[in-house]
């Protein structure tokens, strides 16, 4: 029987689990991070379009986007296709132990599907060349290189960055004769996005209600429950996936959501900056850029979150303090006077524990959470996986559609739509 997981996984022995519970109780983490501090994200773009390698210091993922012409599905003749394929059996040797393979592979795959496909982040209509006949089929291959905890964030960041970095060839379709232009003839075209989803992962332990963000493999294996939230840069919640043995009260989830919203915004901002840098380097670079050579050794222009987002970090920190203060405030349960997070009132989260079709923006808890909610009234989210899927619910489509029309009308350029939204708020 495949008892011997040939790959040593930290956090499997009792000593390690007890030790982590103890460490979390005293707010100690191995790499010295605070409980709401994430690891540094490093992006390296390949020399051809749509290749990106992401590393959260030891967790390394490579994403590659390719496109080819194909026939649309009969149910959606006017839309292109997006296919995500995660491979964890490669250099990461994660397919050794049969039991962990399925569980890890399936959750990762479903998480990515929900974050990118069912949340309609890509504008698939723009990929349609000829209805019912020719549409672009975009395929994203995510190869996990090394798993040191938090594969969800690494792969979502990698997928988003690869999709944003990808350029597809131009194509004309005249009297059913298809012509695809090569790179030399026509400038390549980037993909069109409706919104930019990124995920943040938390681990919760029995010994301390305060969740840990961006867990390492040791913390992930020793954790009792995992919460994965994914927000887009307009701070709309795309997916929420919470499950595990410890009941998490709504207040903790809301607090995680608040921090995650700001974090996702910062990440998308960071990806845009790195894209711009990569663009520059490509223009003035002599011939094809360095590509993934930059992975090797210390090179000067490393695209890392900490370096690039210096400014953002400071501006970001006040909200961190608030969330920290928020936790203490929650203990004394008086109204947290946290700065209003730019949030749009959309839909109060339905309380029933069934399949929550929830497209609420991260609420400011002060408005809808009944004030007299005493601290101990914990709404234990059911231990089974609560998958809040941003379904294409009626009201969501109606509301989303009119906001998008507004933007699409204007010249589709990401930065404008960003300002546009903030002015609206």
């Amino acid at each position, binding site marked *: 029987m495949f*008892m*011997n*997981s*040939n790959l*040593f996984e*930290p956090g*499997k*022995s*009792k*000593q*390690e*689990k*007890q*030790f982590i519970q*103890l*460490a979390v109780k*005293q707010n*100690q983490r*191995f790499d*010295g991070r605070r409980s709401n501090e994430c690891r540094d994200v490093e992006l390296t773009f390949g020399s051809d379009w749509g290749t990106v390698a992401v590393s959260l210091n030891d967790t390394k993922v490579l994403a590659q986007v390719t496109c080819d012409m194909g026939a649309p599905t009969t149910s959606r003749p006017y839309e292109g296709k997006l296919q995500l394929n995660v491979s964890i059996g490669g250099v990461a040797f994660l397919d050794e132990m049969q039991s962990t393979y399925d569980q890890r592979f399936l959750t990762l795959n479903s998480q990515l599907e929900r974050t990118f496909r069912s949340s309609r982040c890509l504008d698939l209509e723009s990929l349609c060349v000829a209805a019912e006949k020719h549409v672009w089929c975009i395929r994203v291959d995510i190869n996990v290189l090394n798993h040191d905890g938090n594969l969800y964030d690494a792969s979502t960041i990698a997928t988003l960055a690869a999709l944003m970095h990808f350029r597809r060839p131009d194509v004309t379709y005249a009297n059913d004769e298809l012509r695809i232009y090569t790179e030399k003839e026509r400038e390549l075209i980037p993909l069109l996005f409706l919104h930019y989803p990124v995920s943040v992962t938390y681990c919760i332990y029995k010994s301390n209600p305060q969740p840990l963000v961006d867990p390492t493999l040791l913390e992930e294996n020793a954790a009792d429950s995992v919460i994965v939230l994914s927000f887009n840069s307009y701070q709309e919640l795309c997916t929420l996936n919470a499950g595990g043995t410890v009941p998490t009260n709504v207040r903790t989830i809301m607090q995680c959501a608040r921090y995650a919203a700001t974090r996702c915004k910062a990440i998308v901002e960071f990806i845009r900056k790195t894209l711009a840098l990569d663009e520059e380097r490509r223009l003035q670079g002599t011939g094809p850029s360095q590509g993934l050579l930059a992975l090797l050794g210390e090179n000067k222009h490393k695209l890392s979150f900490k370096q690039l987002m210096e400014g953002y970090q400071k501006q970001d920190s006040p909200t961190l303090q608030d969330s920290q203060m928020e936790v203490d405030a929650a203990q004394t349960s008086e109204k947290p006077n946290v700065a209003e997070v730019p949030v749009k009132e959309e839909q109060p989260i339905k309380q029933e524990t069934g399949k929550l079709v929830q497209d609420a923006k991260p609420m400011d808890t002060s408005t809808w959470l009944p004030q007299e909610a005493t601290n101990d009234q914990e709404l234990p989210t059911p231990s089974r996986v609560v998958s809040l899927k941003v379904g294409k619910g009626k009201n969501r489509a109606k509301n989303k559609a009119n906001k998008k029309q507004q933007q699409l009308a204007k010249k589709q350029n990401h930065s404008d739509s960003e300002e546009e939204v903030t002015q609206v708020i």
Partner: protein
Amino acid sequence: MSSSGTIVMPGERISAIEEVAKSKRVILGPGLRRLDDTVVASKAGPLRHKEPNTFWVDNYQRRYVPARGDLVLGIVKAKAGDQYRVDIGSADLASISYLSFEAATKKNRPDLNPGDLIYARVLVASADVEPELVCVNSNGKRGKLGQLADGFFFKCSLNLGRVLLRENCPALAALTRRLPYEIAVGVNGRIWLKAHSLRETIALTNAILALEQAGYAEIDKVCDNLEDFLQA
């Protein structure tokens, strides 16, 4: 003690050893292989020589190959009949009978359950049979072996384990100067640590792991700036 050798690559004949072998008996350690009367390296790394006649290749490795007489740290995986299956990081799971513990009789068996840590000696180890461990020395006493309670446990490369286990190793000495602690180093690249407080254990773990990143060339430098690990 061990002269630092030149780098040998697999397949290379090492004539130095063959000369020594003409005069007296030679002990070929791991990494060296005998082809009739030539000595050929099978691993890449510096060739080490211990005074009288012992030669071995000190190559970098993370996968443990069991050998008789090694002291290893194992995680109990399962209880199969009158044997425990222990993972010592080798190709197969090692087995240890419930009798090979101190004062273990048919009736009062040692209470080991999956996830526990034991420090044991490899009794039987060969390529074709699964390794066998024992937690008792020849006269039935526990000695230093047996189950390890709380503290923290982590994996590192085999080389780091060997560096820590050399005679009066500077790293351990430096760590002792700073704080009292208990340590169990397995030759299979696994280390168990216990210090008074949790912060100290974390600092110790980071210090030892830093040794590996630093490539243990600057072993003293790492030990000197233990303070910043302690503060972290």
